[in-house]
């Protein structure tokens, strides 16, 4: 399914963490493509491995505990995993940038934000420090930070959460990356700000025409923003298709569960329906389909309990990993 305008294609990526109780399989042969200028969403409950996927793409898996065991990540048709650390550095923050969930802790508290952004510019664009700062100011304006000129010299603790996230974004887009990985960019922020940040991302995507890998657990966000979606459950992709397809007819019971469990506008419910049970520990995944203990359909199905379903194309460009998934 690799097409010519594919910017990033991940194939059978598996990333494990070594723990005292043995290797924790955080990501298991995950594959997906991101076309240029599209927004690709990676959805799932916390701990399902979406962030690890993102970090694997950045090759920022904390070593030595964590390691990418197998797979292929080709960015503009070069396999990132084969690059030297040195070359990789020229890509990080430059071609692929990333923003994180916690804008507070993700910014270095002891450097002025101006410095932290300019640092990236100086690094990748070999700019004079003075030039870099003026560019920084422009970028801050671009992310709608009021009187950027002054803000440059302020420190993270002097900014509000939203502002900080904007700074993070500014830092990320400072080198006009072609892929922006946004790992739960809005989770830590309150709702009103969330919208602004997401709008900002859209706007930037248009202007800079970059692709965005949006990592979130919030289907609402996905519905509005994403072009294509992959739903992750327990370190694997459960279902993958275009955004509206997913919301029209979700095939995987987990996806269905997720969709039901969010409040429907208009319809009055006396209680939200939820998915029974909770996410399995990466160290002791259930046998067979990892979802079967919580699955309304397959919880006492022999096959679901023993054999793990592979991700298969159920309908054109709509993949699901479920024995029961059909048109």
């Amino acid at each position: 399914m690799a097409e010519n305008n594919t910017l990033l294609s991940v194939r059978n990526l598996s990333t494990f963490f070594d723990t005292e109780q043995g290797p924790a399989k955080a990501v298991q042969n995950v594959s997906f493509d991101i076309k240029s200028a599209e927004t690709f969403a990676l959805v799932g409950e916390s701990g399902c491995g979406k962030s690890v996927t993102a970090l694997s793409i950045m090759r920022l898996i904390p070593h030595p505990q964590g390691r990418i065991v197998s797979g292929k990540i080709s960015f503009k048709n070069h396999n990132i995993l084969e690059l030297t650390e040195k070359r990789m550095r020229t890509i990080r923050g430059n071609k692929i940038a990333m923003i994180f969930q916690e804008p507070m802790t993700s910014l270095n508290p002891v450097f002025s934000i101006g410095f932290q952004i300019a640092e990236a510019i100086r690094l990748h664009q070999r700019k004079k420090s003075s030039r870099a700062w003026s560019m920084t100011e422009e970028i801050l304006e671009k992310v709608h930070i009021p009187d950027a000129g002054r803000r440059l010299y302020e420190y993270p603790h002097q900014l509000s959460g939203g502002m900080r996230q904007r700074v993070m974004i500014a830092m990320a887009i400072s080198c006009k990356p072609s892929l922006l990985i946004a790992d739960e960019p809005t989770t830590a922020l309150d709702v009103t700000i969330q919208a602004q940040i997401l709008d900002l991302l859209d706007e930037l995507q248009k202007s800079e025409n970059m692709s965005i890998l949006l990592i979130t657990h919030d289907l609402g966000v996905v519905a509005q923003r994403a072009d294509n979606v992959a739903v992750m459950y327990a370190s694997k992709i459960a279902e993958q298709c275009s955004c509206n397809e997913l919301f029209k007819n979700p095939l995987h019971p987990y996806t269905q569960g997720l969709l039901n469990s969010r409040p429907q506008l208009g319809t009055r419910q006396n209680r939200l329906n939820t998915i029974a049970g909770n996410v399995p520990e990466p160290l002791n995944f259930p046998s067979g389909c990892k979802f079967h203990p919580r699955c309304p359909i397959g919880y006492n199905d022999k096959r679901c309990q023993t054999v793990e379903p592979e991700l298969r194309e159920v309908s054109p460009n709509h993949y699901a990993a479920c024995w029961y998934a059909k048109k």
Partner: protein
Amino acid sequence: MIAYIIRRLLYTIPIIFGVLLVTFILFNVVSGDVSDQIAGKAASAETIAEIRAEYGWDKPLFLSWDSQFINHLKNSLTFDFGRSWSDREPIIDKIKQGALPSLSLTIPMFIGELIISISLALIVAFFRGTIIDILSVFICVVLMSVPFLSFILFGQYFLAFKWGLFPVYFWPDLPLPQYVALPILIGIVAGLGGNLRFYRTVMLDELRNDYVRTAFAKGLGTGTVLFRHVLKNAMIPIITQVVLAIPFLFLGSLLLERFFGIPGLGYLMIDAIAARDFQIINAMTFIGAILFVVFNLITDICYSIVDPRVSFE
């Protein structure tokens, strides 16, 4: 800022008072006086009486405007500690004389220690969990486990005497850098373990923070991340450690000075202990405390330099 400093200085008054109280109780009350030792062999009672008068030991301890305690306060605060009784020299002079040799030993030791252990700590911290890390931590612990005295005795015996790499001891007209070289080396090696271990922990705590990941995500190289981003954050605990260590430099090193004939304050103190010359120890204690308090203040001011979050309001 100024207001803050003043506030802090006021806050130190009770502490200074406390120190004076402690030293007084230790050296004037508990220890008892040494007049009969000053008198020397076969001294008559009236000689002793004269001496007690001379040193003011005949006065009441507390509860009088001319009590020993009040005088103790007066003298200490004016840095007039009287004369040592073992040789009739002004104690403050002895301390002045001793300060330089001590510092010429401890300062290079301190700086070298600092540079080595911090840069090592960063390296080790980066290789955390790998064999390098484990090995270095082990070596640290090994270094920490050998008694200091053993370091000195073996060092002097082998490095200086057997292999003649260094002078064995202080010697007239021998340039200072030469005869302090070995003590400095010994001091550094002996201290390396503890320091490296401490700084490593500091660095590890820092490396767990998200901003490190951000920095890497920016595409920064390891060196830049460690020495620019991490180090500046780590500065806060480091400064605490470092600045508060400075007062102790003035104390010199008891053992090193003694074994390498460096006429510093450590040496002075050993003599004082042997001769029960409490007033010297009293003076040292007091000065040490003053320095400590001062540098405590300096630490807080340093925080404001490295950490924008700290403000004096």
